[in-house]
């Protein structure tokens, strides 16, 4: 038993943090929101070089994984920096392809995902696909069929302007079918939820850090607003919520059971969302503006809350994962 990140894992987080800090990530986020993918994709290939996408991909397909703990470490940093793009979706696509019984589609598509050469997105059932216009691989699962979609419908803005949503078009090449697809889709959902939980935790930590910095320097009534208890206590609550989401995230990465992952997802997303509400409140009016960078995390926290499983779905999955039958009523 040693439930702590090791030195290498911490160094990995620190190196991603340093890279993303120096990379002008906020301007890449803003460009992405305007439909200009160039700076975002440049960031993407640097993340791929750092090995981020290889973490979800088995060695047989040029990856280094599956390494869910390291993946969670990486996605906390991606969330902290608000990196745009179908990051979670690429990881989920990788999990989906490597979870199939037949290895053909994985052999064909995964090496390019691991290297960052291609960008994937996917829609399980009839959900939206994130950033289909930026993706080179658009996967769609309908019932027991996995398709390579030929294109996508109109791109619609999300409440988070850096997330853009579209439906895959029908048709396209059938990659796999049968119960293997259902199983692989469930596997992909777990990875998507884990990565989303980590991303949300990261977003929440960024919101907290920025708000703490702000309330230390903003003065009203002749003192920093951070010296008021009503301000302090809201931030203390945000810290508590985030600190108790973190162990659930890493516990889920270790077990990867559907219930643990769902618990991490709902807790991290609720913590990030509550922190976003606090952050907005404590910034006053400036927090409500699009031009101030805080907005980049504020809206993401809202969007991640329902991405890959609403709070209610995740809570149901937690109870569904307990031993014994469901409710006896």
């Amino acid at each position, binding site marked *: 038993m040693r*439930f702590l990140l090791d030195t290498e894992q911490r160094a990995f987080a620190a190196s991603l943090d340093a890279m993303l800090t120096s990379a002008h990530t906020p301007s890449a986020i803003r460009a992405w929101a305007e439909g200009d993918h160039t700076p975002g994709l440049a960031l993407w290939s640097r993340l791929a070089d750092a090995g981020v996408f290889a973490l979800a991909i088995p060695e047989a397909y040029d990856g280094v994984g599956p390494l869910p703990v390291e993946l969670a470490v990486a996605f906390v940093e991606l969330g902290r920096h608000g990196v745009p793009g179908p990051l979670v979706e690429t990881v989920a696509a990788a999990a989906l392809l490597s979870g199939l019984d037949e290895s053909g589609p994985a052999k064909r598509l995964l090496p390019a995902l691991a290297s960052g050469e291609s960008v994937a997105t996917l829609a399980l059932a009839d959900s939206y696909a994130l950033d289909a216009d930026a993706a080179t691989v658009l996967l769609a699962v309908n019932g027991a069929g996995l398709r390579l979609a030929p294109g996508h419908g109109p791109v619609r803005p999300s409440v988070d302007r850096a997330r853009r949503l579209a439906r895959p078009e029908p048709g396209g090449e059938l990659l796999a079918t049968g119960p293997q697809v259902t199983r692989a889709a469930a596997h992909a959902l777990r990875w998507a939820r884990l990565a989303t939980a980590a991303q949300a935790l990261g977003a929440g930590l960024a919101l907290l850090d920025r708000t703490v910095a702000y309330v230390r320097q903003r003065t009203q009534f002749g003192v*920093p607003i951070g010296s008021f208890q009503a301000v302090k206590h809201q931030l203390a609550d945000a810290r508590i919520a985030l600190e108790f989401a973190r162990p659930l995230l890493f516990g889920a990465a270790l077990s990867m059971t559907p219930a643990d992952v769902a618990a991490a997802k709902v807790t991290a997303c609720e913590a990030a969302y509550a922190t976003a509400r606090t952050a907005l409140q404590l910034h006053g009016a400036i927090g409500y503006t699009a031009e101030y960078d805080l907005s980049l995390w504020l809206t993401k926290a809202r969007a991640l809350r329902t991405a890959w499983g609403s*709070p209610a779905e995740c809570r149901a999955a937690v109870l569904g994962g307990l031993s014994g039958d469901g409710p006896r009523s």
Partner: protein
Amino acid sequence: MDLTHSAADEAFRAEARAWLDAHVPSVPLPSLETEEGFAAHRAWEAELAADRWSVVSWPTEYGGRGADIVRWLVFEEEYYAAGAPGRVGQNGISLLAPTLFDHGTREQRARVLPPMATGEVIWAQAWSEPEAGSDLASLTSRAVRTDGGWLLGGQKTWSSRAAFADRAFGLFRSEPDTPKPHQGLTYLMFDLRAPGVTVRPIGRLDGKPAFAELFLDDVFVPDEDVIGEPGQGWRVAMSTAGNERGLTLRSPGRFLAAADRLVDLWRTHCDPSDTALRDRVADAVIGARAYQLFTYASASRFLDGESIGPESSLNKVFWSEYDIALHETALDLLGPEGELADTDWSEGYVFSLAGPVYAGTNEIQRDIIAERLLGLPKGRR
């Protein structure tokens, strides 16, 4: 990162489980907040101690098993999963004993710890006073120098289980004119049945005579019952409060067991259309797991030699609010039955309500989190 236990720790778990299976009373003991229950729980402490299960984390010479923090967590998980009784000796075991390990003399440890381990001497914490609650350092009860010891005077209050306990430990002002209120305090132990002590029980919210106020009138305490240096009482009391206490005041095992019982209750009382209640049950399950894993992470750092310090305030707020939410959910699931007093759930509920008040109120903990963990400026107290 690793959550699996070593084979030796699992063997320890199995040993604890087997012992508990054979010994946990099949009928729950009466509430330890009553005289009858107190006696029954004292006997249970003796039974635990007879096989060295009452203080597993202490060195063997004092009746423990030298268990490290992880083994202590394992033991607690098994203890509460087995439905074993609440611990009447908790104040002594979790507050006074760590203080004696850090600041006591060999003689004090040898004299005080073994009868604490067996439940022969049950300790009460005498910190609060009528005018010194959150602002504990403003306390005014006195310790005045006399031949071979000290004479205590003044009043203490809200002393849990002091009505039936044997001895108490607390802070007293020994130097009246210091520049700062937390200077000149002395930490000492005294006998609740010594001449000059009057114990007046106070009914709790549910009417049980659990805690008490203490009136002290020239109560003699010999020098050997002073812990640490006279005048240094604040430092002595605080050093243990922040560190180990943050890990061991409330074990996750207790909440894991309660969440399991809640899920059982939900399965038998569930209205499938009530998804709001279902969500609260799920949150109780998640909260217990979060608290367990958070504690394992703290324990890992503790084993690495890090001190826990102000982070224990995160724990305190979390478990105290969690405990209330869990019990409220149970009462709501029970419907009209939830109103009945003296059931396990309603007793637990009433007890949980005090969590945000004792052990440092949650407002004070939030100040600590904001100032010492987030680095926000000190404001007016």
